C-alpha cells in the first residue's frame, strides 16, 4: 500500500515535471509577448521528434542539446513571421493563429513521422532500475529530474542576474517604459519567445524518453499546462512550476486508486482553485484583465 502510494506519487511527479516545464515556457511567453501560445505543445512534440531523428547520429546527450536548439530556430522564425504582426492586437487573434499553427504542425508531424507512436530509445544504462525495492526509480527518471532542476535553476538565474533577464522582468512590469528607455523590445520579445520554446523542446525530449512519441502528444500535454498556470497563478513563474507539480502528483495518485478520473481530477482542482482563490496559488491580482 505504501509502496503503491509512493509509486504513484513518483509517477505523478514525473508527469508533473513535463507540465511544469511546459507551463513555465507558456507563462514566459504569456507574460512578455501577451500571447497564449497554443502551438507550444506541438513545438514540444517537434523537439521530441527531432531528437528521435538525430539521436542515431549524435547520441542521447547530443540530441538533448541539439534538438531544443533546432526547435528554437523554428520557433524564432514563427515568431518573426506570424506572431510579430499580432503584438498589440486583440489576444483573440494570436490565440486563433497559434491554434491553426498547432493543427498544421500536428498534421505535418503525422505526415513526416507517421501516425503510429514511435519509441524513443534510451541508453541502456539509463533504463535500468536503481534498486530492487524502488523498481520505478530508473536512472532515466533521476536524470530527468536532475535535468529539470538544472534547466529551471538556470532560467531563474538568467532572469535574476543577466541583463536580458532583468529586461524581461522589467518588460513584464511595464513594456512601454523600457521601450522608452531604449530597449529593443522586438528583440527582447523574440528572445523571450525563444527561451519559452527552448523549454518546450527540452520537455519534448524528456517526455519522448518517458512516454514515447505520438503526433498528439503535444495537444495532450498542453491542456494540463494551461491548468498548471491557472492553479499556480498567472504572472508567477514559480507558481507555474508549483501548479504543474501539484496537478501531476494529483493525477498520478488518482491514476493508481481511481484510474477513470485521472484526467478529470486536474480540471476539478482547477475549478476548486477558481472558486476559493481565483488568482491562483501565487498569482498577482488583476494581471492581463
Amino acid at each position: 500500500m505504501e509502496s503503491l502510494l509512493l509509486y504513484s506519487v513518483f509517477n505523478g511527479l514525473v508527469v508533473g515535471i513535463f507540465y511544469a516545464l511546459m507551463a513555465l515556457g507558456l507563462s514566459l511567453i504569456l507574460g512578455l509577448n501577451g500571447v497564449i501560445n497554443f502551438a507550444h505543445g506541438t513545438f514540444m512534440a517537434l523537439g521530441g521528434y527531432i531528437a528521435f531523428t538525430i539521436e542515431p547520429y549524435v547520441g542521447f546527450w547530443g540530441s538533448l542539446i541539439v534538438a531544443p536548439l533546432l526547435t528554437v530556430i523554428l520557433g524564432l522564425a514563427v515568431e518573426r513571421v506570424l506572431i510579430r504582426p499580432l503584438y498589440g492586437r486583440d489576444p483573440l487573434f494570436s490565440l486563433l493563429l497559434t491554434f491553426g499553427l498547432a493543427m498544421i504542425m500536428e498534421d505535418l508531424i503525422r505526415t513526416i513521422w507517421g501516425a503510429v507512436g514511435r519509441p524513443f530509445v534510451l541508453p541502456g544504462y539509463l533504463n535500468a532500475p536503481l534498486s530492487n525495492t524502488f523498481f520505478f526509480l530508473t536512472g532515466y527518471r533521476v536524470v530527468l529530474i536532475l535535468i529539470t532542476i538544472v534547466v529551471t535553476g538556470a532560467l531563474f538565474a538568467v532572469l535574476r542576474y543577466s541583463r536580458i533577464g532583468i529586461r524581461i522582468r522589467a518588460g513584464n512590469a511595464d513594456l512601454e517604459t523600457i521601450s522608452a528607455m531604449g530597449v529593443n523590445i522586438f528583440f527582447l520579445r523574440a528572445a523571450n519567445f525563444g527561451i519559452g520554446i527552448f523549454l518546450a523542446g527540452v520537455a519534448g525530449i524528456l517526455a519522448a524518453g518517458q512516454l514515447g512519441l505520438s503526433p498528439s502528444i503535444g495537444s495532450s500535454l498542453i491542456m494540463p499546462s494551461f491548468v498548471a498556470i491557472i492553479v499556480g497563478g498567472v504572472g508567477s513563474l514559480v507558481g507555474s512550476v508549483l501548479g504543474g507539480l501539484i496537478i501531476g502528483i494529483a493525477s498520478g495518485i488518482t491514476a493508481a486508486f481511481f484510474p477513470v478520473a485521472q484526467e478529470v481530477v486536474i480540471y476539478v482542482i482547477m475549478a476548486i482553485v477558481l472558486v476559493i482563490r481565483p488568482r491562483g496559488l501565487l498569482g498577482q491580482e488583476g494581471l492581463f484583465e
Partner: protein
Amino acid sequence: MSTSIDAKLALNRKSGGRVVAAMVIWVVLLFVPFWLPMIGGYTDLATRALIYAIAASGLNLLLGYTGGLSFGHAAYFGLGAYGAGLCLIHIAPSVPLAILGGTVLGGIAGILVGPMAMKRKGIYFAMITIAFGQMFYFIAVRWNSLTGGEDGLTGFSRVPLHIGGEAIKLGPERFYYLVLVLFALVMAIIWQILRSPLGHSFVAVRENTTRLRFLGVAVDKQIWVAFAISTFIVALAGTLNALLTGFASPDNLGWQLSGSFVVICVLGGMRSFWGPFLGAVIFIVAQDYLSSVTQNWMSFIGLIFVLAVLFFPQGLLGFIKGRGR
C-alpha cells in the same frame, strides 16, 4: 440641414439593402433541397452548415457582441449531442424531447461553468474556458458505460415525428427543413436580444467594462447571462448534429471544434449579424471539399485559421462593409 437628410436617405437605402439581402438569403435557404443537388452538393451538407451557423451565431453573442473570448464552446455542443442521444436511448424515442433534453443539459452546464470561468477576464478567461472544455471531453471519453467512450455514443436514430396521430418520417429533406425552422427561430431570438436593452448592455460590456461598472451595472451578471444564452444555443446545435449523424462522438466536445467555431465567427465577421452564418457556410464547404481531395485537410483548415487572422481579421462582411464606407 440638407446633409442630415442625405445621411438619413443613405441610412434608409442601406437598411433597405439589408432587408433585400436578408430576403435573398432566406429564399435561397428555403429552396436548398432543389438547387443544391443540381450543382453537385447534397442536402446533408447544407444541414450541417446550418447547424454550425446556429452554433457560431450563439457563440458570437458572447464572442462578438459581449467580448468574451470563449474557446471552449464545443463542450456545450457535445453535451447537447450526448444529451440528445441519451434521451433517445434511455427516456423516449422522440425527436422533440431529444432536442429539448440535449439543449437543457448543455445550457445548464453553461450556467454552472459560467461563474467559475468568469472569475478572470480577457486572455485568462480564454484559457479557463479551454480547460473546462477539456474536462467535459475527458468525462465523455472515460465514462464508458454511459457515453461509449472513445467510440462515441451510438444506437439512436431520427425517429419519425408524431403530429396529430400521423407519423412523419424525417428524411434528409424534411430534417433540413426542421433545422431551417430552428435556425430561423434562433436568428429571430438573437435579433430580438440585440435590439433589447439587454443586448445593448452586452455591447456596452464589450466596449467599456470599467465605465459600465462605474454606472452601477452588474457587469459580471451581464456576461453570465450572455454566456448562458450562448451555451443554450450551441447545445441546441449539438442536438441537431447528433440527430444528423446518428451518433455523438468525443470530437463533438474537442478543442479543435471549439477553435473552429471561433474561426467561423472571425471568418464571416464577428461584428455582423450574418457573419457567423456566412463563416459557417464557407467553413463547412471548405472542410467537405478538402477532406475529399487530400489526407492533409487538417493542415489546410489550420491554414484557414492563420490566413483569416493575418489577412481577414474583420471577416468577410466586415471587409465588405469597410469597402462600402
